[in-house]
Each structure stands twice: as structure tokens, then as C-alpha cells.
């Protein structure tokens, strides 16, 4: 466990806010790529697999950026 702690400390002293944002942008890029490949919207599990991350971490990261779709778009057209 001491080893686990040291590992965490060495690699993870940055703040969450920055790390989450990086992950979120990677997730959006993966979404674009997969949409092209699959010819449909990928689901979060597929995106997580592409990034080799846990699904829950991808979902959490997406909270840190502005909503990726425009709020009023579906309302006004």
C-alpha cells in the first residue's frame, strides 16, 4: 500500500480541474472519430474503451466542460 500511495503521489499531484478538462476534450475527440468510423453516435462505453479509461471517469470528466451541445438549438428549430 505504501507503494500504491507513492505511485499516486508521483503521478497525480495536479489538480483535478485541469486533469478532468484534458480528459473531457479527449473524449470529445474520440466521439468525433468513432462517429465517423461507426456512422452513428458512439455510447460512453465505446468512448471509454477507445481512451482506455473507465466509463465513470469519462462521464465525470464531461461535467467539467461546457455542455457539448447548444442549449437552445433543439428548441428553436
Amino acid at each position, binding site marked *: 500500500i505504501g507503494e500504491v500511495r507513492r505511485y499516486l503521489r508521483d503521478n497525480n499531484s495536479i489538480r483535478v480541474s485541469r486533469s478532468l478538462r484534458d480528459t473531457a476534450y479527449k*473524449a470529445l475527440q474520440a466521439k468525433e472519430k468513432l462517429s465517423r468510423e461507426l456512422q452513428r453516435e458512439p455510447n*460512453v*462505453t465505446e468512448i471509454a474503451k477507445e481512451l482506455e479509461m473507465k466509463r*465513470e471517469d469519462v*462521464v465525470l470528466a464531461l*461535467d467539467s466542460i461546457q455542455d457539448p451541445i447548444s442549449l*437552445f438549438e433543439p*428548441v428553436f428549430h
Partner: protein
Amino acid sequence: MRIEFAALAENEAFARSAAAAFVACMDPTIEELTEIKTGVSEAVSNSIIHGYKENPNGTVELECQIREGGKIVIIVRDQGVGIEDVNKAREPMFTTGKTEERSGMGFTVMESFMDRLEVESRAGEGTTVTMIKQLDLSDGL
């Protein structure tokens, strides 16, 4: 799943994340996830701002259920001031807030992002908003 939290503005982001975390196991797309989060945000912010006027002694309740076939049921409940005329409140652009800050589009947004929206409210007793959304499971692996 049921969450209770204080009527503080910063808890809106938390409620949204918690709802997203809960429905994640259903493999939604990012778009579906965003729609659910936006609906939760609008309902929760209404409870905090209108229901309790940001009095942190007020408690907002968020309930999420996953039904068979990928149907998501989300219930946001407060024991705040309530709504006198629900039909009027649901009209696009209607707001009792200062118009510079409030768009009056909250219920309209919930309605358009979800498949069904029910609003139950009594002046002085509080408000319960029920949103139902059917996820598209067709693209399953």
C-alpha cells in the same frame, strides 16, 4: 437512487453529475447524457432559486430510476414556495425572476430534452417535477 442536498447554487453541478453517473451504466451517448444533465440542472436550479430562494435550509430531493427497456425516470422534489399556476409557468418565456437573469425557458428545455414532463405543485407546499426519457438502445454492441 435518491439524493438529498441543501438548496445551494453549487449543488446544482453536483446533482447533474450524480444523475449522469447513475445513468452511465445504461451506455447512453454523450448527447443523451447531456440532455439528461441539462434537464436535471433546470429542474434543480428551479427548486433552489424559485422554490427556496437559495435558502440553504431547504432540502432538494433527486430521485433516478432505470426502468426496463432503457427508460429513465427522474424526479426532482422540493418543499418550497410552490407554483400558483403551473400551466402558465410552463409557457415558454414565462418567468417570475428578473428577466435579465432568467430566460423563462427552463420548463421548455426540460420538455424538449425529455420524452415526458409532469409538474405537480401547490402554492406553499412545494413542487415535484417528473421527467421521463427513453434511451435509444438500438446501437447496442
